[in-house]
C-alpha cells in the first residue's frame, strides 16, 4: 500500500512535558484519515510537526516517502495544504485577495482557478467583504480554500468543524468528501466530534498520551462495532455447541461470555442451553459506536 505519510517513533517534548512519545502512524494514499484523541493527546502537536511548524525531538516522519530529516522534505510539502487550529487568513483582506496572496506565496504564474476555488468552498458571492466580517464557518472554508491553492494532494485539517453550527458542519463534511472523491485528495483530519468523523473517515488513528494506540480502517471499525447480542452463561463451551447447532456467527470472549452476531429467540436459546446443562445468566444488545469504541479503547479516563 502507498502511504502519503508515515511517522516512526516520533517524540516531541516541551521542557519536561512529553507531547508525543514514540508515535507511529500510516496514512494511506486516497484515505480520509481521522485522528481521534482527547485534549492534550498530541493530535495538534503531531499536525504541527507534519506541517513543519515544529521539529520532532526524536524520531522522524516521511511525506511521500521523503524523510523529515532530508532537505527534500521542503519540496514534498509543496504537495500538501493545511489548516492548523484556526484558519490562517489575513483578516483585513477579502476572500479573493487572500487567495491571490497565497497564489503569490506559491509563485503560481496566474490567478487562474481562484473563482473555481471560491465556488468550491461556497464563497463566490463574498465580493469585497473583508475576512474579519466573515462568520466562523466562512473563515473555516476560506482557510480550506487557501490550503487548496496549488492543487495539493494531501490536506491536513485540524478540528475543521470546531465551533461551527450544524449547517456549517454539514457543508464542511460535504466539501471534504467531494475533495476526496472528485480530486482524490488524501485528507488527515482531527476532530473531537466523533459522530461527524465516523461519517467521513476511511481510516482511523486513536491517539492517547502521545502514542498511537490503535490504527484501523473503517471496515475494521465497522466489524468491531457490529451490532451483536452479548450473552453471559455459566459454560461458554456449551454455548458454543448450541450456537453451532443454530448456525449463527459468534465470538467467544471468555469462559462465560460471547458475542452473537444474529437476532436470537431468547427462550429457544435458554431451553437449548438448559439441555446442555448450562444456565443463561444475561443477554444484552450491543450497538457499539465510534464513540463507545474510543471510550473502551482509551479507558474512558
Amino acid at each position: 500500500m502507498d502511504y502519503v505519510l508515515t511517522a516512526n517513533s516520533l517524540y516531541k517534548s516541551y521542557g519536561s512535558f512529553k507531547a508525543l512519545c514514540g508515535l507511529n502512524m500510516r496514512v494511506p494514499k486516497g484515505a480520509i484519515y481521522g485522528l481521534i484523541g482527547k485534549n492534550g493527546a498530541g493530535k495538534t502537536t503531531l499536525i504541527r510537526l507534519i506541517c513543519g511548524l515544529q521539529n520532532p525531538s526524536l524520531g522522524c516522519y516521511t511525506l511521500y516517502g521523503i524523510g523529515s530529516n532530508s532537505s527534500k522534505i521542503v519540496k514534498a510539502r509543496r504537495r500538501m495544504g493545511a489548516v492548523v487550529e484556526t484558519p490562517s487568513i489575513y483578516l483585513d483582506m477579502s476572500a479573493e485577495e487572500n487567495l491571490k496572496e497565497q497564489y503569490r506565496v506559491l509563485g503560481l504564474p496566474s490567478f487562474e482557478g481562484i473563482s473555481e476555488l471560491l465556488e468550491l468552498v461556497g464563497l463566490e458571492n463574498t465580493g469585497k467583504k473583508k475576512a474579519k466580517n466573515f462568520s466562523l464557518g466562512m473563515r473555516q472554508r476560506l482557510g480550506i480554500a487557501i490550503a487548496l491553492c496549488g492543487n495539493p494532494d494531501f490536506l491536513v485539517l485540524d478540528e475543521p468543524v470546531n465551533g461551527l453550527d450544524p449547517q456549517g458542519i454539514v457543508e464542511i463534511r460535504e466539501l471534504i468528501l467531494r475533495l476526496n472523491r472528485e480530486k482524490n485528495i488524501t485528507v488527515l483530519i482531527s476532530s473531537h466530534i466523533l459522530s461527524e468523523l465516523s461519517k467521513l473517515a476511511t481510516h482511523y488513528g486513536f491517539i492517547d498520551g502521545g502514542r498511537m494506540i490503535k490504527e484501523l480502517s473503517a471496515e475494521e471499525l465497522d466489524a468491531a462495532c457490529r451490532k451483536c447480542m452479548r450473552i453471559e452463561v455459566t459454560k461458554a463451551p456449551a454455548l458454543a455447541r448450541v450456537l453451532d447447532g443454530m448456525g449463527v456467527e459468534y465470538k467467544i470472549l471468555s469462559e462465560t461470555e460471547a458475542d452473537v452476531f444474529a437476532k436470537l429467540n431468547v427462550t429457544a436459546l435458554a431451553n437449548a442451553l438448559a439441555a446442555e446443562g448450562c444456565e443463561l445468566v444475561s443477554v444484552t444488545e450491543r450497538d457499539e459506536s465510534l464513540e463507545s469504541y474510543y471510550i473502551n479503547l482509551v479507558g474512558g479516563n
Partner: protein
Amino acid sequence: MRNLLSANFCRLLKNKLFWFLTLCLLAWSAVSSYDNACNLINDPGPYGDIVIGTGIAVPESVCFDSGPIVLVIIPVFASMFLGTEFSDGTMRNKITVGNTRGHIYLANFITVSAGSLIFCAAWHIGSLSALPVLGLWRAGVFGWLLLVLKSALFCVAFSAILCLISHIITNKAAVAVFEIVFALAVIMVGSFLYNSLLEPETASNGVTVSTNENGETVLEPIAPHPNPEYIPEPQRSVYKRILNALPSGQAILLANTADSEKEQLDQPLYACCSSIAITAAFTVVGLLHFNRKDLK
C-alpha cells in the same frame, strides 16, 4: 524567496497603516522643516551674524530634525506588519507549503527594511520644504546625499533589530508595545549620551554677587572651573562610539548636523559601518533563532 517577496510587497502596497504613516511623516517633515527654517531666519538667536547659506541658518540645521520620529514610526509599522503574520497565523501558510524559514525571515526583513526606507524617503522629501527659505545645503547635494545614505543605513539597522524582536515576541499587541517602548528607550539613551558629550570641559557661567565697602552690589564673573558633568577620557571615547553606533544616536547627531559642537562627535564612517554590522549581526541571530523556533 522571490515568491515570498512578491507576496510581502503586494501586502505592503495595500497596507493602509503604512501609507497613512508615510503621509503623516511626509507632512510632518515638510511643515516642521519649513516652520523651523522660517523661525531661524526671523529669530537667529545667539548667532546674530548669520549669513544665509554659510552660517547656522543652513538647511542642515532643520532638514534632519525628524530622524528620531522616524525611529518611532518604524516600530509601529514593523510590529503591525509582522505581528499580523503570527496573529492571523498566515506564517503557517508559508511554511506548510514548503518555504524555508530562512527565506521567510529574510523576505520579512527585506520588506520591513523597504518600508523603513520609504519612511526615510518621506522624511527627506518633506524636509526639502526648507530649501526655498534657506537655500541649498552647506555641504552641497553630494554632502546631503551622504547624510541621506547614513540615515538610510541606520533605518535598515533599526529594521533588523525590530525584525528580530517581531520574530521572538509573536503576540501582535505585546510586540507593538515592546517595540515602541524599545524605540523610545534607545532614543532616550542616545539623547543622554549626546547631551553628556556636549557638556563643556570647564564651566565659567555665572557671577558672584557681593557688596563692597560702599554698600554697592558688585557682580564678579566666576573664574572658569572644571565641569563635574564633563565626561573625561576614556569614558568619553566609549560614549562617542556608542552614540555613533546606535541608530538613535545617529538620528540625534543627524538632527543636530549644523551644530558646531557636534562636529567632533560625528564619526560618519564608523556610524555607517556600525549600521551595516548591526544589520548583519541581528539578521544572523534572527535567522538562527527563527530556524529553531517552535511555531503554533
